[in-house]
């Protein structure tokens, strides 16, 4: 049994008391908390060497540029990118996915083409494609889910016809916790000639990610879910595709030359980083990567599997609880959505909040998936490195309390 409880002291917010009770934070899938190791780095940037990057001929700017580019290097290494220029800093996973959908899609999709998504996607990997489909005339097709909340990969051969030009799917569902066989799906889709995009917003912080092994064309994720700050994320892309793809935004820093009637672009990745980037946030993300690498992502994954197993066992003690997600720990991460009898998820969340327990209730930005589950919303508890068995026990006790209030038998 892996013990990460010593990490808790790194996260100041965990000292908070909520309605007089100690905080039990179980909403890291929405956004994780941050260790002092990240907060201190960011604060120190502003206090000791902050300046805008790339264009300064003075020391602070040089130091900031170096730190910013080193952060890129850290992120590149974290996902085992071939080189740091394959990593584009973005505002978050959402922007990264829009960048691909618009930047690649607008030039490569047209009426008759198909974009293949899955029923499990977060709106961030659905709405951008809908927007691009509307503008290009392409159609959307969705890979369905199996009865045990996994992607129905057996349906791929039938759905993946020659009109499918893009396959974009999640590396880990933020609702069911499902982890699809990414490399397997990516291989089939790429062999088929489709562009493969992986939404790794959850995956990247719950398991080791090696973009070369995944075999996708683009991989998107956010910093704030992986112990980093808000306002930053990244898009990894194959060099050849980044080279050819149109920039998503125009502005400073992303140009090579600007004439009155047209411009040429800076080399990758700068072509995709118009304007002043989220400098300190990128450096903070680099510090978050350092923190996670020090623990080791293999261990993070194992800790989470153990905790998830324990939580599923405890939830099974409550007959009124129905979990929406794979039972097999090999195929899921530490995100657990469930229903408690017919008590509405928002009522469950309010009762838990009174006990100091932070969970999420709703559709988790995945309305089509929630509809497919046949419920208006779910309660979701999700784990990060700082969660413990005690947190699970608190959740269990809180659910008992909810059963009491709502007289669930």
């Amino acid at each position, binding site marked *: 049994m892996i013990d990460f409880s010593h990490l808790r002291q790194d996260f100041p917010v965990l000292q908070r008391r909520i*309605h007089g009770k100690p905080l039990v934070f179980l909403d890291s899938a929405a956004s994780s908390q941050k260790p002092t190791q990240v907060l201190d780095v960011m604060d120190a940037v502003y206090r000791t060497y902050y300046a805008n990057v790339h264009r300064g001929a003075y020391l602070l700017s040089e130091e900031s540029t170096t730190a910013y580019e080193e952060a890129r290097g850290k992120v590149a290494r974290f996902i085992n990118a071939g080189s740091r220029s394959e990593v584009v800093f973005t505002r978050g996973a959402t922007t990264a996915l829009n960048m691909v959908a618009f930047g690649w899609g607008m030039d490569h999709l047209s009426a008759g083409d198909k974009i293949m998504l899955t029923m499990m996607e977060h709106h961030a990997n659905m709405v951008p494609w809908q927007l691009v489909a509307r503008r290009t005339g392409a159609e959307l097709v969705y890979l369905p889910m199996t009865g045990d909340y996994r992607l129905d990969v057996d349906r791929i051969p039938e759905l993946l016809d020659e009109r499918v030009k893009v396959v974009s799917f999640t590396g880990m569902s933020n609702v069911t916790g499902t982890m699809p066989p990414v490399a397997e799906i990516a291989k089939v889709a790429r062999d088929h000639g489709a562009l493969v995009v992986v939404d790794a917003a959850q995956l990247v912080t719950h398991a080791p990610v090696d973009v070369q092994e995944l075999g996708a064309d683009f991989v998107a994720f956010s910093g704030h879910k992986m112990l980093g700050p808000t306002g930053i994320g990244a898009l990894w892309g194959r060099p050849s595709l980044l080279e050819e793809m149109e920039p998503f935004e125009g502005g400073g820093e992303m140009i090579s030359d600007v004439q009155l009637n047209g411009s040429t672009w800076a080399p990758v990745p700068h072509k995709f980083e118009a304007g002043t980037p989220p400098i300190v946030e990128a450096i903070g993300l680099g510090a978050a990567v350092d923190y996670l690498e020090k623990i080791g992502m293999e261990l993070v994954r194992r800790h989470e599997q153990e905790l998830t197993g324990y939580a599923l066992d405890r939830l099974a003690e409550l007959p009124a609880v129905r979990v929406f997600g794979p039972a097999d720990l090999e195929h899921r991460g530490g995100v657990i959505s469930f229903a408690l009898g017919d*008590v*509405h*998820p*928002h*009522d469950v969340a*309010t*009762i838990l909040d*009174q006990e100091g327990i932070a969970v999420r209730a*709703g*559709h988790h930005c995945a309305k089509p998936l929630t509809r497919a589950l046949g419920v*208006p*919303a779910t309660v979701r508890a999700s784990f990060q490195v700082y969660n413990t068995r005690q947190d699970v026990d608190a959740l269990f006790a809180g659910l008992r*309390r909810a059963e009491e*209030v*709502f*007289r669930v038998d």
Partner: protein
Amino acid sequence: MSIEELYRDVILDHNRNPRNRGTLDHPDAHAEGNNPLCGDELTLDLLFDGDRVTEVAIQGQGCSISQSSASMMSQAIKGRTLDEVRNLIATFKAMMDIETAPSQTGLDPDRPGAVLGDLEALQGVRKFPVRIKCANLAWTTLEEALKSRQ
């Protein structure tokens, strides 16, 4: 602040056994409301005789606060005149408005239930600010329905 202040028995009862459930075939007034952030949904049909509400039918899904508020509202407005309904709306909104002092809401602290009946059980929601919009959903939908009649 205890959770029982929010989930009073009468609220749980209305949530379990919502009154005036259903739809009307030829409503004089109709509106649909939803709370995109929570997913609460409501449709409201009204029949009038002159300016008096004679029938109310509600359908929807959502949390206990939104659904019980709708159920209690349906009871409160049935048989009332338009003016009375408007008064109810104003009083309910004052009760839900955390900017309004409890003494200014128009409720009578000595006679619980005298002004808004069962609905006064929703007072506890004031202490749970994120849930206020749940309690209000039925009432903003009612306002829309009244507009639809004109």
